[in-house]
């Protein structure tokens, strides 16, 4: 396990000493505690609830739901976004603290989905927010949402954000 996280172990010399890069250690901690905002708009929110429920448990990955954007890292847009809701959604995203990630869950959030014929539906949430992971399905199964969360975790583990950018 230690090799996967690029951790060098000097167990022969001193059992209490582990060497690693600071980025790796920080990313390991951040990836295993991604707290998501409870934003259930429509049918996908029921699958989101059941993913956090007893069978496919998101809690074992360290993810909890938070009711306020100030305490969350991840915004899962679950459901159809309409024009009346769009300014509120943008405001919620702006209220989250950096670094933040967005999963577009379901067809309606990816591209408007079933409701492309409608006059009052935003055809894809990426017209309003920057999206990291697109998750297809109508609604996606709990296993699919778990995979999307794992992809976010992999993305976090590759980040280097302690380096000064020129």
């Amino acid at each position, binding site marked *: 396990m230690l090799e996967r996280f690029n951790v060098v172990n000097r167990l022969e010399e001193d059992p209490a000493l582990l060497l690693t890069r600071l980025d790796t250690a920080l990313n390991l901690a951040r990836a295993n505690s991604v707290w998501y905002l409870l934003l259930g708009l429509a049918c996908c929110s029921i699958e989101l609830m059941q993913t956090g*429920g007893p*069978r496919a448990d998101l809690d074992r990955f360290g993810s909890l739901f938070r009711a306020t954007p100030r305490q969350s890292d991840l915004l899962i847009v679950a459901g159809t976004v309409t024009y009346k809701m769009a300014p509120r959604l943008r405001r919620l995203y702006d209220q989250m603290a950096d670094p933040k990630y967005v999963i577009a869950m379901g067809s309606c959030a990816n591209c408007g989905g*079933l409701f492309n014929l409608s006059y009052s539906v935003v055809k894809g949430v990426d017209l309003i927010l920057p999206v990291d992971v697109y998750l297809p399905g109508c609604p996606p199964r709990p296993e699919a949402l778990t995979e999307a969360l794992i992809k976010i975790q992999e993305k976090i583990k590759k980040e280097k954000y302690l380096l000064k950018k020129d």
Partner: protein
Amino acid sequence: MMPGDGRDPGITDKFATQEMVLNMGPHHPSTHGVLRFILQTDGEMIVHVTPDIGFLHRGLEKIAELVPYQSFMPFTDRIDYLASLNCNLGYAVTVEKLAGIEVPEKAEYLRVIGAELTRMASHFIGFGALLLDLGAVTPFVHALRERERYNDLIEKLCGARLTHNYVRIGGVSHDIPSGFKEETMRYIDHLEYEFIKEFNDLASFNSILINRLKNVGVISREQAVEYTLTGPNLRGSGVSYDTRKDDTYSIYDRFDFDIPVGKGMFGTVGDSYDRYWARIEEITQSCRIIRQALNQIPDKGEIRTKLPKAFKVPEGEAYVRTECPRGQLGFYLISDGGKSPARLKIKTGSFSAMTIIELISHGVMVADLVAIIGSLDVIAPEIDR
């Protein structure tokens, strides 16, 4: 000034208070969906509530005029996503009535079994969400566990967990798989004889729940009829009316079941506890219907009548009402002989339930407003369509 209403008569008489305007915004930690309430409060007491809706308005009625009749079936799933089979059934019954299509026997039994299973699953989230809003997290997870078993069953039947799209105009889409009857029997035996008793011991007779729900949001019989409440909300106020018995459709007249009516178990008739208890009792009645249907279903038979490729409905108008878990779902269909409806109006039970919140929430506390909204079991897509 009565003792227990939260005001100390000695102190507040001397203060001049001012009303404040609070926003219970479209994003809030409750499972009823995107609803917004603008509250005018005097301290903790509410003076006036204005609901603001439309955050999930997807224009289903306009889409119905643009797509053919059979293609509209997946959209009816999304009218009430927790009870999709019942909404599918309502739309299919309306079109079949206007076009004069006969549905085979086996398909009718499959429709009833699916609809009653979905009714129970919707009530799990209905009263589970009420308890979650009041602060009890554990019973909600118990209800979700039962709903997961329902998801497995319905996935065996039609392939989808949530938005089923199982009913077709003229029948259903898939036949009964092997082993389904025995598994469903085991499930409803577990629900009727084990789960309900366990849930009642855990939550329903808990003194905190009773104190939070009794005498809160009392809707009298006259108010319920005037504001067109339907479903468990109407039955909780003492009116014994169920569309499955009184305006029967499909084959519901072959089954024997009761209609639970609110009797003021712990408070006045028509309070929040009565509406909550009506949903608990309906689970037992749905189990009875499913048991009878599973015993009567024919082994062999067609499951779908063949329709012509370019299916057209003759001219006419029809208004058909069916019983969904959240109220009565009415489809008013006007056809001009073409491939799509000329006008389809969807009338849902939650729409009327939202109109009565303004009336019954004068002088309650903000926490009681949450209990009232939860006991009426409203859901956003039914209101906005």
